[in-house]
């Protein structure tokens, strides 16, 4: 029996007068990978950024409706608590260039001023890096700067940084669009591992990726949630003609 972890109720997001996400209602089950796909400008990234309240950081951006995390409305919580429970990984790898690889992993603790004993920190770093399959590659260069790594390694470092905070949900905003095919497949393999402990919501441009990695897929078009179903169902037997047209490549 799967339980809902994130639920949006009549969620609307705006940039000034521009209504970019329209009345989205979605139930996201725990320990699943959810792919959010749709053509450019359909509001999928904005919706994702609404979940951990990153949307409102942009000047002029507003939102209405509810996003429930375990039944609690994140719009009523302080954004800092929301973001500790809902981690995020961005399109381009963005490790902190002034910190070492080690410090990048525990950045969420270090920069928040949370003091931990050295042994505890070592444990978190090793554990998080192992989870993202990066430990073996970087264990001898932990003191080097984060920007020393390749793009794919940097992205996995950013995932480790999010994982280190032990969030409940991880949001990915087109996490592989800046990566080469080999790094992409490494990151995609990670999703299968990570969903054992977390719920992943992945925005992607790439239909094949959605089909490969996700349990359920949501299709956004012009700010609306057109269809939301099991990925297999969605790709073999879409209900809405717009979904069908998108999947068969009639528009993109």
């Amino acid at each position, binding site marked *: 029996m799967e339980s809902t972890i994130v639920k949006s109720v009549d969620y609307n997001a705006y940039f000034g007068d521009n209504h970019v996400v329209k009345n989205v209602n979605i139930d996201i089950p725990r320990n699943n990978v959810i792919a959010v796909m749709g053509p450019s400008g359909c509001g999928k990234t904005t919706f994702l950024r609404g979940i*951990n309240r*990153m949307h409102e*950081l942009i*000047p002029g951006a507003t939102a209405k409706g509810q996003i429930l995390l375990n039944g609690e409305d994140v719009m009523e919580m302080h*954004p*800092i*608590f*929301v*973001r*500790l429970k809902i*981690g*995020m990984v*961005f399109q*381009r790898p*963005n*490790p*902190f*260039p*002034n910190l070492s690889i080690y410090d990048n992993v525990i*950045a*969420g603790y270090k*920069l*928040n*001023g949370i003091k931990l004993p050295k042994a505890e920190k070592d444990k978190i770093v090793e554990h998080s890096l192992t989870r993202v399959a990066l430990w073996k590659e970087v264990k001898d260069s932990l003191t080097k*700067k984060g*920007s020393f790594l390749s793009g794919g390694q940097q992205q996995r470092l*950013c995932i480790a*940084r*999010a994982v280190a*905070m032990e969030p409940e949900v991880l949001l990915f905003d087109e996490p592989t669009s800046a990566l080469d095919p080999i790094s992409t497949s490494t990151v995609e393999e990670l999703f299968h591992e990570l969903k054992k402990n977390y719920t992943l919501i992945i925005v992607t441009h790439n239909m094949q990726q959605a089909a490969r990695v996700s349990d359920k897929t949501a299709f956004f078009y012009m700010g609306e949630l057109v269809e939301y179903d099991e990925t297999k169902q969605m790709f073999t037997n879409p209900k809405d003609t717009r979904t069908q047209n998108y999947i068969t490549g009639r528009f993109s």
Partner: protein
Amino acid sequence: MASNHVKYRIGKSTFFKGLTILLACACVVPLIFILIYILQAGLTKINWHFLTNLPKPVGETGGGIANALLGSMIIILVASVIAIPFGILCGIYLSENKKSKLAYWSRLCVDILQGVPSIVIGIVAYFWLVKPMGGFSALSGSAALAIMMLPIIIRSTEETLKLLPDSLREAGFALGLPFHRVVLKVIVPCGISGILSGVMLSVARIAGETAPLLFTAFGNPYLSFNLLKPMQSLPLLIFNYATSPYNDWHDLAWGASCILLIWVLALNIFTKLMTRKWKVQL
């Protein structure tokens, strides 16, 4: 005929290239001449005695610029203590709030402040500080110089921080950092080399300012450490002694000019090295 045309174009291109090189050299030449001239005139005057002694009265040979050297250092130090926190915080505000009304107006004010002649700032400091306090003081001189430092620090901080990608701030926010920690732990450390180079350049810029000190620090032939009393400084000493009719005093002025020049040069070179070393690779 075609080849002639090509030759003509190659010639024109060579001429243009040569012209840019020539003009680039022309910019360097004045600095080199000034350096050579002042070093020639001043370097021979500098020795340990010159650096550690007070100026002698007219008629006595020897004497040094210890009071001006220390005075300059103190005045600049106090000016930095006033200007650096204000300047950096204002620069952070401007870079974080690109579009607010307050940012627009303060940016405009900073730009205008940069263009205010230094003598005007001196006069303003005279009316605001010297008159109410009842006398010339080093502190009022520092305040005048701090006002001159502000626009340089503010603009360099703002420009440096604006160049940092937004993704860096978002990375901080996404980890649940509050705004002040994103600024202090992520943004400022990544832009530290640019901020510090702005600070250094502003120090180099005010090291030679004379006009704001004329009505404020005033000058003092004796060694003084009291911030509330007049204090000597290098530019003031140069100004007073170079316009005097005595040869001994001219020598002191040359030596002091040389010291000031070396100081500013060293600061600039140091800034360049530091910026390179502390630069965060994005």
